[in-house]
């Protein structure tokens, strides 16, 4: 079986959907963060697959994927810092309880 672009698309779509489900369904901020990472990786897969199949020479997709990974690392660092502060303050990371900024 040859691996075609479609396989990568399906894989990426599946990963992305799992990610969305995770973000919407989980209550724990840490797990939401994990789900977010899944979505980012789904995007990365798409980028690299398209680059490899559509325009193998210039490798633009790969470059952007590396960029996304970098940004994701920074994001995780920041988000974990926020979550730690949250835990220190409220002894919980349940996002349902974090609604004091509404009005």
């Amino acid at each position, binding site marked *: 079986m040859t691996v075609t672009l479609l396989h990568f698309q399906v894989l990426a779509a599946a990963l992305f959907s799992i990610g*969305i489900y995770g*973000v*919407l369904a989980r209550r724990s901020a840490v797990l*939401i963060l994990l789900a977010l990472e899944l979505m980012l990786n789904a995007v990365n897969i798409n980028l690299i697959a398209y680059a490899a199949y559509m325009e193998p020479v210039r490798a633009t997709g790969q470059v952007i994927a590396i960029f996304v990974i970098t940004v994701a690392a920074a994001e995780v660092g920041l988000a974990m810092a926020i979550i730690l502060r949250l835990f220190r303050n409220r002894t919980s990371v349940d*996002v*349902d309880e*974090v*609604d004091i900024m*509404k*009005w």
Partner: protein
Amino acid sequence: MPETSDSVTSGVQWAWLAPAFCVAAFTVIAVLGRFLPRQGAHLSVLAILGGFVLFWYVLREFLVIGGGIYKVDWFSVGDVTLTWGIVVDELTVVMLGLVTFVALAVQVYSLSYMKDQPGPFGWYFAVHSLFAAAMLTLILADNFLLLYIAWELVGLCSYLLIGFWYERRSAAEAAKKAFVTTRIGDVGLLIGMLLLFNETGTFDIAAIIHVAEQGAISDGTLTAALLLIFLGAMGKSAQFPLHVWLPDAMEGPTPVSALIHAATMVVAGVFLVARVFPLFVLSPDAMLVVAIVGLVTALIAAAMALVMTDLKRVLAYSTISHLGFMMLALGAGGYTAAIFHLVAHAFAKALLFLGAGSVTHGTDKTDIRDMGGLRTKMPLTFITFGIGALALAGIPPLGGFFSKDEILVAVLDGRNPIFFLLTLVAVLMSALYMARVFFLVFYGSLKRDNDGAHESPLLMVLPLAVLAALALTAGLLAPGWTSDYQGFGAWLFYDEPHPYKVNVLVMALSVALAVGGFALGWAMYTRGDAAPETTRGRRRGGQRREQDAYVQHPIPARLQRQFSGLHAIVVNKFYIDDLYQWGIDRVALAFANFMALFDRIVVNDTAVNGTGDSVRRSGRTLRYIETGKVYNYALGMAVGLVVVALIWWLALPYV
């Protein structure tokens, strides 16, 4: 299109220097005046003197070589090129001489008159300079745009000068009235001018006349444009029903009245009609309106001059009346007659106003009821004022006689006999009110509190003497004396020259009415003068009674009793001012109040503040739909993403 006709270079092109001198004087005095000796007043006199000298040069060049139109480009917009240009023709030369001379006389007189008056001395002369500059530009302008700029500047300067003593409420009000009333006319002029521009694509007066004479402008449009332009002339020349500002303009210093009434402001309207006279000739309807307005103005103003008791106001109404004569002459096709009367009247009226200023200077009075018997106290003023009065009344052989004669001939030729008869009535009244003022001020017995009256200083009497000499001799320009000079009409004319000739019937009537009117005035106002009446009144009441001049003179007193209703109407200026006041209070201000209310309630409270309030109110209500739960927002984002994707997917085939 008549272009520059300088096949032979004529020196008349330097005429533009005359207004330039005055602008320079204005600028220097306004900016540096406070550092100069006597606040730079002499600079102003020097500038206008320069203009006057230049006039003689221009006159010589004009007579020897000829005039022309000289212009430089200003800027271009699309197909339209606007120019600064001057036109030098007979009309311009006459006006140039008149304006520079009268302005010079008035400024020399003012040097003395204004010395002990309140107010900034230098500023007074600065505005005088600007006034002269504006007027000179007005008469030199070859296109409507430049003319309009000068026209508005004249209006501004008259505002500044009438309101020179602006701390006095009445002066400020009078200045405002003059400005607003003439503005009504100015709007007419602007619209008329733009209408002609729309038809012809140019502001150049000569070009517009050329186009109109080809018949390229429809009769209706031309008449409308001319009537609008005439509205401007009515405002500036104080024609009925826009005449109300001029008597009030007497609030300014007396020399200003002389300048405004003789040489500048008010003749601008007559000049404007004369400048575009070839257009008026093409529209008989417009001509008829001009004639009717002129006649009505001449009649009602003369009637009011007969009953006013303020010296300067009598002269003001007399001016209005004579401007009416000029307009009437123009409306009857008497182009020459109008301009000649303008010149003759300017000398006489400047003389009379400066004389009135001299009387006021000597007695500190303005009401003719407080005067009388001044001929011994102020002999020079008496003689010169007398000459002015005789000239204006039209007694031969003074200036006013010839010009009035010409007007009568023109009216007889150009209009139906009713016009002629009514003009004769106005002529009679003109002689009568001049006699009234003259005899009431200088004859009769001296009022006791005028014992201290004195002749004015030399600097004030000198312009009086020069103007008197001119008023005496101006009429001599009318007839032809040599084969080269066939009379004023053979030199300044529209269409074809008409050498001076005598119409015996008209002349006899005119002389009879003028002399008769003056004699009647003498009979009415010198006999039965009863100084005892005054003293008796004073003795009895301890305080002087408010009494009319007529009370002292039996004939006018009886007439006034007999026609008390009519007298009341005339003394109250035919209630025209009251009508305007009513219109302003009850119509204009009421409408303004309504609009102010509309603005406050509908525009401000509802539209502007209403928008802000509604946003604030809806925000206050809608903020409760926010939960602050992260997953709500995340769900919203996900749903939104799906919706966008769906729309894109469905719409893509059609893009």
